[in-house]
C-alpha cells in the first residue's frame, strides 16, 4: 500500500480508512500465515480480530503513533494471535517468525463490564439525533463547532445544550446510583 491512512484519520473511526487497510494487507497476511498448518477460515478470523484490535487501540488512545508503519503494527498483533492459536493446537512453530509479547503493547481486547453492557442497551434506545451527537463527540472526535456544521445545528450553544440533554437522558435511563 503506497499511502497508509494517517493516525488522525483513523482516530475519527472512518470505516473507509479501516477497509483500505483491511483490503491492502489481507492477501499478504494470508500468505504469511499459510506457511503454518492452520485453516484458511482461522487465518481470516485472526486477521479480522487483529484489525479490530488495531481499531480499539487507536480509538481508545492506546496507540498514539505507529513507530514504523500500520502494516508492521497490524502484522505484529496478527502474528501474536496466530502464535497463540498454534500453541493452543500444540503445533510446532518457528519462534523467530513471531514477535515478543512486549513489542506490541496491547493485543487483548476489552470486555464490557455489566454496567457498560446496560449502558450500551440504553444508548440504542435513545433517539437518532441523540445517538448521532454523542457518537460525533465521544467517538469521532468532532468539536462542538464541527458538530454544529456536520449535523446542521443553529449555533454552538444549541449543540452543547442538546449534548447535555442526551447525556442526562442516558444517566436517567441507567440506575442513577451507578453514576453518582
Amino acid at each position: 500500500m503506497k499511502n497508509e491512512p494517517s493516525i488522525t484519520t483513523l482516530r475519527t473511526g472512518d470505516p473507509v480508512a479501516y477497509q483500505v487497510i483491511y483490503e491492502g494487507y489481507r492477501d499478504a497476511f494470508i500468505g504469511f500465515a499459510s506457511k503454518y498448518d492452520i485453516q484458511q477460515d482461522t487465518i481470516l478470523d485472526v486477521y479480522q480480530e487483529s484489525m479490530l484490535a488495531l481499531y480499539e487501540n487507536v480509538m481508545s488512545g492506546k496507540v498514539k503513533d505507529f513507530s514504523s508503519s500500520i502494516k508492521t503494527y497490524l502484522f505484529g498483533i496478527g502474528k501474536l494471535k496466530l502464535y497463540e492459536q498454534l500453541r493452543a493446537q500444540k503445533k510446532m512453530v518457528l519462534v523467530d517468525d513471531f514477535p515478543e509479547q512486549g513489542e506490541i503493547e496491547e493485543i487483548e481486547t476489552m470486555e464490557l463490564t455489566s454496567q457498560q453492557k446496560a449502558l450500551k442497551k440504553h444508548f440504542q434506545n435513545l433517539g437518532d439525533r441523540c445517538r448521532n451527537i454523542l457518537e460525533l463527540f465521544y467517538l469521532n472526535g468532532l468539536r462542538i463547532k464541527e458538530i454544529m456544521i456536520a449535523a446542521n445545528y443553529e449555533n454552538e450553544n444549541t449543540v452543547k445544550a442538546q449534548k447535555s440533554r442526551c447525556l442526562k437522558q442516558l444517566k436517567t435511563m441507567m440506575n442513577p446510583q451507578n453514576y453518582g
Partner: protein
Amino acid sequence: MDRDILIHNYFHQKLSDEEQVALNELLENDPEFKATFELEKDLNTVLIDTGKEHLKQQFVDFENQEYEPQSETSFPSFLKYAIAACVIIGLSVFASKYFIDTTNTDDLFAENFAAYRNIVLPIERGEGIDTPQEEAFFKYEMKEYTAAIKGFEAEFEKTKEPYYLFYMANAYLALNETKQAISLLEKHQNFKDDFYEKSRWYLALAYLKEKNKEKSVMLLEEISTGDGYNNKEAGTLLNAIR
C-alpha cells in the same frame, strides 16, 4: 475553562498540562462532574465496542461479496449452456436493435459518479475550523452540499479561484441538479487550471446524466485517447454507452 473542550481533549489525548490540572481538580472537588465523567468514559468504551461490531460486519460482508465460493452446478450439460447462450445472444441482438437509445444513462452515471474528494483543504476532524473556506470544504466533506455550494459561491466571489467552480459543480451533481453543474463545468473549462482534466470527466458524466449522449461520447472519446485523468474509465464507459 469550557467543560466540553476539556472533555473533548481528554478523550482525544490532547490535554495540555494546564488542562490536566484543571481536570484533576474538578474530579477531586466536584462530585457531579466526577459522576458525569464516569458515564462519559463508559460511553466512550461502549461506542468503541459498537464501532468494532460494525467494522466486523463490514469485513464479513466484504468477504461474502468478494470471495464467495461459486455454487456448484449439479448437472452441467453442454446443451443447456448452448441454449442459454443462444437465448442471451438473441435477446442482446433484439435489445441492441430496439432499446439502444433507452440505455439507462442514470444508472451509468450513478455507477461512475463520486463527488471528487477535497484535495484543496483537507480537514482534520477535531482540529478546529477557523476560516469560511475551511467551513465550506468541511460541509462538502460532510455531504452538506447545499450549504457547501453557498460557501463556495461566496469564496469564489472573493478569490476568483477557479477550483471553487469545479467543487460547486460536483456538489450540484451530487444533488442531481445537473444543469447548474454543466454550466459551471463549462465555465471552468476556460481556466485550464490543475482541475481541468478532472473537470472534463465530470462534464462528460453530467452530459450523460442530461441524456446528451452525443456531447458525452465526444468528450469521453477525447479523454480515453489521451493519457490524463480517468482515461481508462472513459474507455470503459464509452463501451457501456455503445
